[in-house]
């Protein structure tokens, strides 16, 4: 159950700070460049954050009580592989969902 005061604080602060990030250089700082090392790091935010974010759910899904589920693990690996090869997001999602559905059907 989501705590409502907490929820509204998240909406407020996440909204304000996300907007601040977007507005920063476009709105205020203009042509001033970021230091090179920071630009370099920022190129890797998405690949460093997003797969790591879901890694625990891939290995220890809550839905199976935290036990590694072969169907979910294989689906995640298939998604990764198809995504890296095809570079097509929708095809990748379709492949991941298909592998999960087939394996769940076969393994149950």
């Amino acid at each position, binding site marked *: 159950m989501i705590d409502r005061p907490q*929820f509204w604080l998240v909406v407020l602060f996440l909204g304000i700070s996300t907007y601040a990030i977007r507005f920063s250089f476009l709105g205020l700082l203009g042509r001033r460049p970021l230091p090179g090392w920071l630009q370099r790091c920022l190129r890797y935010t998405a690949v460093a954050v997003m797969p790591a974010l879901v890694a625990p759910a891939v290995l220890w899904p809550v839905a199976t009580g935290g036990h590694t589920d072969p169907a979910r693990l294989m689906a995640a690996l298939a998604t990764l592989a198809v995504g890296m090869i095809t570079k097509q997001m929708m095809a990748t999602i379709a492949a991941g969902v298909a592998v999960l559905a087939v394996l769940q059907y076969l393994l149950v």
Partner: protein
Amino acid sequence: MSLPRQAFLRGCRDALPFLVVIVPFAMLFGLAASEAGLHLYEIMAFTVTVFAGASQLVALQLLQDQAPLLVILATSLAVNLRMLMYSVTLAPHFGAAPVGVRAAMAYFLIDQSFALSVAEFDKRPMQTLPEKIGYFFGVVTPIAPLWMISTIAGAVAGRAIPPEYALDFAVPITFLAMTAPMIRSLPHAVAAGLSVALTLGLAFLPYGTGLLVAAAVGMAAGAMLEYRREKAGRV
């Protein structure tokens, strides 16, 4: 037809293929939020205020885990840090626009408006400021309303989907599908792999705080490797 208007329509048209991604992703958020017990007005307040899908899904997950406010904000903002890069990159193109226009653009600065605009300005470097502005808003014109509508659709449909469909796994698959195509060099693979390994190793830390450490280490490792390879002349 005026040139800015042509640019606007070109933006609209270029955005259309992305709707295939936007619609299901927005529905997924609406669905996950409604399964988490949020009301439709709460879901819409969330999506209109933040307007950054991946970070909304992250925040939603951590809210359900009862994580502390600061952890929720730090983790979801880490997902949005890439937009700092977008803001930096677009600033030289739009610096001369009125501040009101730039303020509106900032709200609509999303992956698609950034990526398409950069590609367009690269392809047609002689465009005037009004044309560039027209193109940028052209891109978000089909995307933003459909994002909102699809969120509502997902929230409403969510209550009708039986739990035995492994919906818990829709978010992991979507996130992996979004990032896998970005892993296009060894530094990217190292950043992702190291971050994943460290996050799993630090899983004993509460509320995913290990992720923050792991992601920072992964980013730094990717950047350092890139720097070394550049110095060695292998870009």
